[in-house]
């Protein structure tokens, strides 16, 4: 029932707008946004989310926006009620900094690995887990702790999203994904933790062109694929041999 839907258009914006509309995203939802800095950030999907208009969002992402584009633009547009992240404060996070100091956005700081593991737990049906990270610090205050095998652990709960917006390198015609280098970062985990997952890809390759041993995100986690190769001039030629089978778009 969650067969992957493909979106393409005359412009990247049209394709992304169609995917966001189909994702069912509404105000007040929790949105997982991929990327570590700009690597892996789904900028086209964030721009579409700004145009979409949903507000009062809780955004889960490693950072809280860089410069004035992407997440920073979503924050500047006043759409975000709360940010859950590991590292909001950066040299170019002036948009978040201003909103936070003005009391206009809430912040939950989570250690980076715990942030990833909490989403992994959500995708894997694990309700909560005992983790040594953060024990004895401000970030564990008020949390249940327990000694396991002689070591202190703190209980952390699963963190799920209503929608995940991620960037991958390639999709095949059925929604299997591969990533590029360290741009992989949070994408595969968020894809499993979002009730609906929307991905922007550099290109869609024919089904059969991805090595089944090398698929990182299996199609079951992918609901909407925005194919940027149909709209931009940035894509490179496929390096995998195309088959005669066309993407089932």
């Amino acid at each position, binding site marked *: *029932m*969650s*067969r992957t839907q493909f979106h393409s258009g005359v412009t990247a914006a049209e394709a992304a707008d169609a995917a966001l509309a189909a994702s069912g995203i509404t105000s007040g939802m929790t949105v997982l946004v991929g990327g570590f800095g700009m690597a892996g950030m789904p900028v086209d999907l964030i721009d579409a989310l700004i145009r979409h208009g949903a507000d009062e969002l809780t955004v889960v992402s490693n950072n809280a926006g860089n410069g004035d584009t992407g997440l920073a633009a979503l924050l500047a547009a006043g759409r975000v009620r709360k940010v859950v992240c590991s590292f909001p404060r950066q040299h170019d996070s002036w948009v978040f900094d201003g909103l936070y100091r003005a009391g206009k956005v809430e912040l939950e700081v989570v250690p980076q690995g715990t942030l990833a593991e909490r989403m*992994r737990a*959500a*995708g*894997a*049906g*694990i309700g909560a887990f005992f983790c040594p990270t953060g024990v004895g610090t401000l970030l564990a205050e008020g949390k249940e702790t327990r000694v396991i095998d002689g070591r202190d652990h703190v209980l952390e709960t699963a963190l799920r999203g209503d929608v995940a917006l991620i960037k991958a390198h390639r999709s*095949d*015609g*059925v929604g*299997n994904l591969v990533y590029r280098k360290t741009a992989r970062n949070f994408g595969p985990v968020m894809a*499993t933790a979002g009730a609906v997952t929307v991905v922007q890809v550099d290109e869609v390759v024919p*089904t*059969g062109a991805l090595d*089944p*041993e090398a*698929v990182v995100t*299996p*199609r*079951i*986690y992918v609901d909407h694929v925005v194919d940027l190769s149909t709209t931009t001039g940035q894509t490179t030629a496929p390096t995998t041999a195309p*088959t005669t*089978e066309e993407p089932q778009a």
Partner: protein
Amino acid sequence: MSTPSTRSTVEHLDRGPLSRDEMAAVVARDIPDGSFVNLGIGQPTSVAGHLRPEAGVVLHTENGMLGMGPEAHGDEVDPDLTNAGKVPVTEPPGAAYFHHADSFAMMRGGHLDVCVLGAFQVSASGDLANWHTGAPDAIPAVGGAMDLANGAKDVFVMMTLFAKDGSAKLVPTCTYPLTGVGCVSRVYTEVALFDVSGPEVVVLETWGTSVDDLAARLDVPLHRAG
């Protein structure tokens, strides 16, 4: 439930009970197009042969593959490529492999739409018993049964309605050790299809018998749909 049971109960009185093959076909009929499905070992495996290729149903096997192809024959057989029943299978385009923790995360995380399992008993409230006879000398072996029972959005059970000794397998309360609590959506038998996902047991369809006849033979109250 992925397939709402709003249709009225249908009694097929002009024929006998379903054959095993017909049971598999009925299960396949009720799997929505595009579903991600895990077919358990044994009789549920036979459902695969009744899925229409154009329905786009995608098979998961818990030993680590999504998009599993049909059983392998002759030169296709590869000992490194099997289903959960350790039967050699094939790799169609669009398949993906993953390790066991990722495979069961996919299941436990609720990403599969349907899983089809056999059973010793199912209770009126959807409890499942299919892993252990409870016999004192039995060696317990659970495999992925509990993971499957708790993981898929819908759990379909395929079983005969009566055991060889004549006792009913749809029961008020399971007497065999449980595999999962309240996890079964539907029970497919040779004589009837039951919806056990709600507060009461609803008979959706019968073959070669009537709801009234079944009600007389079972200890669970039966209701009609629609």
